[in-house]
C-alpha cells in the first residue's frame, strides 16, 4: 500500500513548482515533506506561504497519513 499524499499549490507558487497538483510518497510528516520540496524547488525556501493539512491551516509539524491533502497557500495582493 503506497503512502500517497496529494499536494496543492496556489497562486504564484505554481511559478516555482510549474504544476498546481503533485503526488508525493514516503513522507512521514509535514516537516519532511517541506524539506523534500525545498530540495526539489529551492525557490520555495524564500517564498511566502502557509501550509494547510486537509483544509486546516497548520502552524506546527503534523504526521501524514495516506490520502492526506496538503495545500500551500501564498498571500495575494492584487485587486
Amino acid at each position, binding site marked *: 500500500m503506497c503512502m500517497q499524499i496529494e499536494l*496543492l499549490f*496556489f*497562486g*504564484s507558487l505554481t511559478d516555482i513548482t510549474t504544476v498546481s497538483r503533485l503526488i508525493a510518497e514516503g513522507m512521514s510528516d509535514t516537516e519532511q515533506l517541506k524539506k523534500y520540496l525545498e530540495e526539489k524547488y529551492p525557490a520555495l525556501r*524564500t*517564498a*511566502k506561504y*502557509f501550509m*494547510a493539512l486537509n*483544509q*486546516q*491551516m497548520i*502552524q506546527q509539524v503534523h504526521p501524514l497519513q495516506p490520502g492526506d491533502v496538503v*495545500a500551500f*497557500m*501564498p*498571500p*495575494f*495582493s*492584487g*485587486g
Partner: protein
Amino acid sequence: MLLNNRYIRQMILPGFGQAAQEKLRAAKVLIVGMGGLGCPALPYLAGAGVGTIGIMDGDTVSLSNLHRQVLFTEADIGSNKATVAAARLQLQDAEVNAAAYPYLLTNQNALDIIGQYDLVVDGTDNFAAKYLINDACVLLKKPFIYGAVSRFQGQVSVFNIPVAEGRPLNYRDLFPVSPRPGEIQRCEETGVIGVLPGIIGTMQAAEAVKLITGLGDLLYGRLMNYDVLQACSYEIRFSHQPEIPVIDQDSFLQMKYDFDCEEEADIPEINVAEFNRLVQQPDIFVLDVRERHEYPPIDFSDAQIPMSELQELLETLPEKEICVICHQGIRSVYAAQLIRARRNLPVYSLKGGLTAYFNQPGK
C-alpha cells in the same frame, strides 16, 4: 411604501423582511480602493440598500483599468476614482449618503476615517494597504472583509468579527508579516483576468450584506480560494496564530506600512548553524522578544524584551549587532524591522526561532 417597493424582491426572502432592510439602511460601509474589487462591490451594496457608503481611492482612472473596473467609462479617464464612483452611486440611488475620499489611506488618517464606519470592504491592490486596513480594524474593533486576486485565482475572507471570548481572528493570523518587495509579484506584473475581481468583489459585497443583516454563515475563520480557470473553490479553515505582532495605537502610528519603498529594511534570517557561529562573536547582542510567560527559559540571550514592550524600549538597546529570537521566528522578523528602522547596525532574525534551535541534534 416606495422604499418597500424598491427592496421588495429581497424583503420577501425567508429571514430577511423589514428588519434586515432597516439594518442595511442604518449601516455604514467604507470601501477602500475603487479598483477591480471595489467597482463590483459598490453597486451591489448600494442596490441592497446600504444607507451610508464611503469610497476611498487616491488614484485616477486609466485606459488599462477599464477591462476590470467596470464602473468607469472612457469619459472618466484621468478623473479620480473615488469622485467618479461617488457620482455614479448618487445616480443609482440619490438617497444614499455617499462620501468620497479622493486620497490614499495612511496610518495617519485611517483611525479617524475607518472609525466613522461599521465595517471595511478591502478593494486595495497592495500588501501595505491590506496590512494597514487590518491593523486599523483590529485597533478599532471593526470587521474587515478581505479580497485579493492573483492572475486566475482570488481569495476572500472576513476578519475581526467581535467574539465573546479572546481576540477575533485577523489577516495576520493567515500571514503574520507583510512580504518584502520581490517576494510576491504585484498585479501589474502578473496580470489579472477582468472578470475575476468582479467575482471576488461581489463575494465581498455578499459577505458585507450577510454581516449587516445577520443572515447565513460568514467566511469568518475560513479563507476561500476561487480558481476561475478550474471553476472551483478551495476553502481553508484557520485559527489563532500565537506569533502575530501586537498592535497598539503608538506602534500603528509609527509603523512603516509602505513595504514597496526601497528603503524598507530587509532583515537577514539566519539558520541555527549560522546562529551558533554568530553568538561566538564578542560583539553580538542576542535579544529574546518572547513574552515573559513563554517557555523554556534560555541562558544564551543578552536581554529579554517582550514584543509588547519593545517599541518603548528601543532606545535602551546597545550599539551592537543584534540577533533577535522568539518562539518560531516570526515575531523576531517584525521586531528586527522595528529595530532596523531606528538604527544603521546589522540586525538578524533566527529563522524558525527557538523551535528550530532546540530541534538541532544534542539540544
